[in-house]
């Protein structure tokens, strides 16, 4: 049984419940252990993990991602409000530098989360991204995001 998973689930229960009677505390612990046991059973089929080791590195990555989201959200808003609607939709195919599934998922999700770019296909070794403008499409391969996610997944 993954103790970290039980602890995280129990914390989640406590935050959502906000009531600390003995019955609810015990029920929460029971539920956390039960869910962790079910997750462990399912790990035989899929490989679901609880990437606790990435927590600290992710804490450094997220503020940067939020900044990027704000920047490109502002750019997309300007494009929307521009009377000429200066869009140049393009598809870009490129090779991400991540090796692990988790790293690829983080990279693909980050691209989609950033306004103006959407990951259409995410295969190992190749991403297909739809971008609102040609400039956004051009900045995808070997981007700073790519480097940062690779550093993030490489965290031991």
């Amino acid at each position, binding site marked *: 049984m993954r103790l970290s998973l039980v602890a995280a689930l129990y914390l989640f229960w406590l935050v959502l419940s*906000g009531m600390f009677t003995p019955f609810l505390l015990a029920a929460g612990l029971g539920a956390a252990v039960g869910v962790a046991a079910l997750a462990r059973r399912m790990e035989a089929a899929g490989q679901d993990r609880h990437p606790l080791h990435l927590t600290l590195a992710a804490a450094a990555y997220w503020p940067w991602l939020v900044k990027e989201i704000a920047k490109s959200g502002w750019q997309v808003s300007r494009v929307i409000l521009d009377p000429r609607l200066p869009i140049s*939709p393009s598809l870009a195919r*490129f090779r991400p530098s991540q090796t692990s599934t988790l790293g690829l998922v983080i990279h693909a*999700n980050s691209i989609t989360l950033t*306004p103006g770019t*959407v990951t*259409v*296909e995410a295969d190992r070794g190749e991403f297909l991204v*739809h971008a609102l403008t040609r400039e956004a499409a*051009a900045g995808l391969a070997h981007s700073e995001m790519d480097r940062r996610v690779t550093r993030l997944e490489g965290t031991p």
Partner: protein
Amino acid sequence: MSALADAASWILLSAGGLFCIVGGVGLIRMPDFYTRMHAAGVIDTLGAGLILAGLVFQAGFSLAAVKLLVIGLLIFFTSPTATHALAQAALGRGLEPLAAKEEENAPSKC
């Protein structure tokens, strides 16, 4: 609640509402499915994010604030996944993107 936190909260809420409107205008103005998705992206990142941040200021240091942050996390994990699923389904069904132009950025393609 202090007036300062109240002011910050209202600024965030107004900015969030403004970006929601911009995203809505974008949904109408954009010419095709894929470009509309980019406009919707403004709503569920900047719009939702700023409104949630404003609500956190309203909640102050309480359990409600933590719950709002959890909702924010949920949106930030699920919305790109849903957007990606939509885009992939559309392309898989053969919906051609407008003015599609493949730009090969990778040095070699398998």
